[in-house]
């Protein structure tokens, strides 16, 4: 059984921020000429006066957002993740993070689901970069339900936030009863044999992987971490305590992102074996989403296979020690 598809996060992005703006006159949307892709155009349609086309000039766009925030507006900045993080990184650092201004960096096209674009448009280290920046809150929603809630939360929070959104429809993890809590991780599945920690739209695939593992007799405990910074230390420690072996899984490089964050937490609070699945220090390439998930070991089947192997190796080690 696999989790069903939800709605595309980009649609939810355009609709949610537009709906927020219905009641909050401070909200403005900045776009770097890709609103028809990121669905910032939904906002433009409903609030043409507060949609600010900034042209293909992302560095200036970040500076404009900072300026807008100083007069009490709440800018949501939208473009592709690749061009929202690394290209204007110094502007984000100096004008947004160092000032603590109320700017929401909410780009779409995160991770490897970027619609046959190749390595220039695939950014695999945005979470590492943003979480390392002092003062930058970093949020990676799992599905459309959580994305909508995270965006609503974001508008109510004062300060810089980075929300990592995805282009295509992805699997739905949560139902409408779910309630996103800033800074809190969520147990997505209970288990006793191995702890899987994931984030963003990778979590539904990890939950599917846990079902495959269950059929093999391995009961995985799955923790979803939507807020990468500030990270939920007690939840990660508790999840590690459940099984004594942790595997992180992310649609992102294994260097410095979720895997790095979990390893930092556990090495300080509860030394535990941590294995990190994700992009192994490589850039992406053009291919279908399904092909890329296979290539980088991120499909449910490939995650299950790798976790199964990790558990097997672990059993052998434990047996050898006995």
């Amino acid at each position, binding site marked *: 059984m696999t989790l069903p598809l939800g709605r595309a996060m980009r649609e939810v992005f355009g609709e949610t921020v537009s709906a927020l703006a219905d009641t909050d006159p401070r909200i403005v949307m900045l776009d770097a000429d890709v609103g028809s892709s990121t669905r910032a155009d939904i906002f433009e349609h409903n609030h043409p006066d507060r949609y600010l086309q900034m042209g293909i000039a992302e560095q*200036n766009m970040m*500076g404009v957002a*900072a300026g807008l925030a100083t*007069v009490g507006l709440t800018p949501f900045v939208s473009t592709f993740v690749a061009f929202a993080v690394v290209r204007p990184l110094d502007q984000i650092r*100096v*004008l947004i993070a160092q000032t603590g201004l109320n700017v929401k960096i909410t780009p779409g096209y995160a991770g490897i689901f970027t619609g046959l674009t190749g390595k220039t448009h695939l950014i695999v280290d945005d979470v590492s970069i943003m979480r390392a920046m002092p003062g930058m809150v970093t949020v990676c929603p799992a599905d459309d339900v959580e994305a909508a809630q995270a965006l609503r939360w974001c508008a109510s929070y004062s300060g810089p936030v980075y929300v990592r959104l995805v282009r295509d429809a992805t699997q739905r993890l949560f139902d409408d009863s779910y309630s996103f809590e800033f800074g809190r991780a969520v147990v997505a599945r209970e288990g006793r044999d191995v702890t899987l920690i994931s984030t963003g739209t990778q979590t539904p695939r990890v939950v599917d992987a846990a079902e495959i593992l269950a059929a093999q007799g391995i009961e995985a405990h799955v923790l979803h971490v939507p807020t990468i910074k500030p990270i939920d230390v007690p939840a990660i420690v508790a999840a590690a305590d459940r099984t004594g072996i942790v595997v992180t899984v992310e649609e992102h490089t294994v260097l410095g992102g979720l895997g790095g964050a979990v390893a930092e937490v556990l090495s300080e609070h509860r030394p535990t074996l941590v294995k990190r699945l994700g992009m192994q220090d490589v850039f992406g390439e053009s291919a279908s989403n399904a092909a890329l998930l296979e290539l980088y070991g991120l499909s449910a089947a490939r995650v299950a296979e790798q976790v199964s192997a990790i558990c097997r190796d672990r059993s052998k080690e434990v047996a050898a020690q006995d």
Partner: protein
Amino acid sequence: MTITTQDQEIGRLEENARRIRVEIIRAVNQARAGHLGGPLSAADMLAALYFRVMRIKPDEPEWPDRDRFVLSKGHSSIGLYAALALRGYFPVEELATFDSAGSRLQGHPDMTRLPGLDMSTGSLGMGISAGLGIALGARLTGRSDVRTYVMLGDGECQEGEVWEAAMVAARYGLDTLIAIVDHNKLQQYGWPGDGPDGRMPPEAPGELVSKWSAFGWRVLEVDGNRMSAVVDILDRARASDGRPTVVISHTVKGKGVSFMEGHYYWHTRTLTADEFATALADLGEPAAATTGGPR
């Protein structure tokens, strides 16, 4: 010859510019670090803005309807701090803390520390974008009387972001945005060539005028070290014509200190005791005031 009210006003502003320069020299000498050439070239413009042109309330720095000022050439921070202190935003004595641990007067302007700063700057090319955002935001929130002044360096105009901002400001017809380029014809080091001290100016003569014009801006030029001209041009800049305005302010780097004027290497440099005394004497500061070093 009669002294007119206008002459008295210019004289008052010239005295404020002189005092800004004196405080720049004192503070940089005290810190044993900091920029000199750029703040000195910009002092007249800063005096005119803070003591005449801008609608501000020093005792209410967050007044929502105030004019805004962004020092895009953030390395000239001490010039701005001197203007703010002399205008009454904070005690002049605090200038002695410039660049020291815990100071509100950081090497580059930090709006989270010092009231009166409308933006943090220091990484070049960014202040103009932030100023554009402020001006756009003021318009969107119905404060169309607010003017946003952004001071850039001429070397800074080599940053690509400046031209991104120039393009977007013109697109929005943002005529409440007034950029001022402190065109002192020198950058920190520059290309080797046949200019002063073997370095080339950051732009060729006329290059800034043609570039800003091509980007759709109203371009005004002024002798930025002549107060009567500065005042006149800023009055003209305030009145809109549907385009953003840039004032190309022709200045002399290190203006007011004989041995600094026109030399790139006074961009940053520490003063010897003799140089400190000479600088203050050049600025007409009484010798008695120089003996104690920093105030």
